[in-house]
């Protein structure tokens, strides 16, 4: 059940370029799973290997126990919603949706009822006779989804499903996709470079970078406990500090010395050797700003800085604060002025503080 779709040590190179580098993943049946990463991270190549358009150089791909690595795309229990939808322009909406069933020589009656039912699901019944060119972007996408889902694939692949839509429609289709996923219960694999999209669509996300999977986790875990600075900065914003572990405390806390900040205490993940150089990460919205030094106790990580710049976003205000040679991003909501917090002006001297649980040790990357 848990290993319904298995990507087993899959690699793929194009010339000298290692597009997918020894990736292993498992996806559960019915799960909504995202491959997230910047362009060129290998997510699309991985998707094309699952669909059967590319053959892996090494490794295996299994769907519900069946090795599909060597199967051509037309014989895989997998269907794809393409980024540009790839609807057949010479066929009507109805015939587009019927295409897959006709290819598998289903009885005429079954084709008719399946296509009608699927068009109803994506609310396009009244457009059945139109050509794709006569539809709006959102409608075209629903045709693409219907055309894939009508074949009852075991896995539905969606390549940047919302990228071609404008912002308003994107938010609408986001809900729609979640609804469709709930209704059909098929395993959905999204490929996207948009972290917001991945967060709101998926049960779990695999963050990819340079052909490798950096971290596979639920959206909450990825955001709250990123394991690498790449993941931390790709999903949301983050402040990074480099320091040296100086003291280990109970329950996985470690005290880290950062030049120019004193010694913030942060939570540690994994085994850290004494005197090891570490990377620390704090999300901007986890930092509180006060005029006076916060009383020690609850918030032990506190340091002083000068407000360099501020940008008002409506829902929140973003501050850039200088502390020594560090530039720190902090984010405040106006409703949080109570409780000793302030509304600092440019050039003001403020105290920044955050709870030890809000600071994370992330993997130090060679490039960083």
């Amino acid at each position, binding site marked *: 059940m848990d290993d319904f779709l298995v990507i087993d040590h899959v690699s793929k190179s194009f010339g000298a370029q290692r597009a997918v580098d020894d990736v292993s993943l498992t996806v559960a049946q019915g799960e909504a799973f995202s491959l997230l990463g910047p362009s060129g991270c290998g997510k699309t190549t991985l998707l094309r290997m699952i*669909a*059967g*358009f590319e053959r892996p150089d090494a490794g295996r791909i299994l769907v519900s126990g069946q090795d599909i690595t060597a199967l*051509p*795309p*037309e*014989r895989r229990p*997998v*269907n*794809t919603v*393409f980024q*540009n939808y*790839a*609807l*057949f*322009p*010479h066929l009507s909406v109805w015939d587009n949706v019927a*295409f*897959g069933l006709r*290819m*598998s020589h289903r009885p005429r009656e079954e084709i008719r009822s399946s296509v009608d039912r699927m068009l109803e699901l994506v609310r396009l019944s009244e457009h059945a006779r139109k*050509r794709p060119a006569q539809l709006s972007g959102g409608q075209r996408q629903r045709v693409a989804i219907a*055309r*894939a889902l009508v*074949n009852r694939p075991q896995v539905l692949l969606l390549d940047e499903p919302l990228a071609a839509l404008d912002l308003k429609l994107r938010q609408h289709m986001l809900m729609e996709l979640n609804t469709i996923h709930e209704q059909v219960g098929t395993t959905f694999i999204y490929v996207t470079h948009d972290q917001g999209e991945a967060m709101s669509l998926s049960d779990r996300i695999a963050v990819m970078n340079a052909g490798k999977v950096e971290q596979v986790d639920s959206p909450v875990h990825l955001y709250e406990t990123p394991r690498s600075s790449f993941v931390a900065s790709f999903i949301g914003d983050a402040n990074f500090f480099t320091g040296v572990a100086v003291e280990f405390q109970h329950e996985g806390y470690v005290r880290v010395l950062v030049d120019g900040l004193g010694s913030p205490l942060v939570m540690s993940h994994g085994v850290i050797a004494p005197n090891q150089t570490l990377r620390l990460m704090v999300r901007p919205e986890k930092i509180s700003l006060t005029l006076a030094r916060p009383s020690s106790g609850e918030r032990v990580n506190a340091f002083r800085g000068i407000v360099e710049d501020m940008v008002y976003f409506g829902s929140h205000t973003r501050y850039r604060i200088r502390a020594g040679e560090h530039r720190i991003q902090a984010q405040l909501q106006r409703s949080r002025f109570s409780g000793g917090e302030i509304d600092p002006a440019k050039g003001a001297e403020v105290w920044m503080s955050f709870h030890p649980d809000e600071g994370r040790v992330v993997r130090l990357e060679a490039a960083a």
Partner: protein
Amino acid sequence: MSAAARPATRQWLITLPSLAWLGVFFVIPAILVIVTAFRPADLQGGVGPGWTLATLREVQDPAYLPILWRTLWLSGATTLICLALALPMTFQMARAGQRLRQVLLLLVVIPFLSNFLIRIFAWKSLLHPEGPLTKLLITLHLIPEDAVLLHHVGTVLLVLVYTQLPFAILPLYAAAEKFDFGLLDAARDLGAGPWRAFAQVFIPGLRRGLISAAVMVFVCCLGQYVIPQMVGGASDEMLGSKIAQRVFSDRNLPHASALAGGLMLAVLVPMLVMVLWQQFGRKEER
């Protein structure tokens, strides 16, 4: 109102030169040809005064029927063979890399650099009983020693296909270049094997290119008379041969005009019907 009318006016102005060209060099001569068919011939090879329907009666000579039939089937067969050869060719060309694509395109166009008659003559030497191709095939025992490759209706077809193939490839290539090959991935993804994807998605996607290629090849074939004369036998004449004969040997312009006009109508009327049917069909869709 005037702002909306202006671009339309400008479009008319832009097309005016080509319309004038078409009018002077195509429409008016075509009308003249048809008009000439109703004039009596004079003995000097010109057109006499007055009007007559006698030529039209002459043209209905049943002896023309087999020639007309041969012209139509040779043209039809050439069109089908050219399309069948050009489709996979353009498929590969459109998928090839930029450099290879340009080389292939150049190779398609290169035959045009040498004179049409010389190319036909080259075929004549190639297929001549003492020619290199015939000798090679006999040496390889692929054909019997007494085989005659020239002066055969098949030879006419072969050379017709050879000369018309570029006219099929170029419009098809123009269409194939614009084809979204992602659609073939989509077809494969939905369960179509490579051949079915080709037949059910690629070919319909090239519909416009196919129509222009077919019209181009078919119409060019209809008027051919040099090829049957040079590589064909005495019984392989096409209607073009007869028209040429009426003009050059018999010096009977009205008779030649009646044949040419008849051929022209035989092509234009079905095409007109097809265009109207398409317009009508498209309205039905909406």
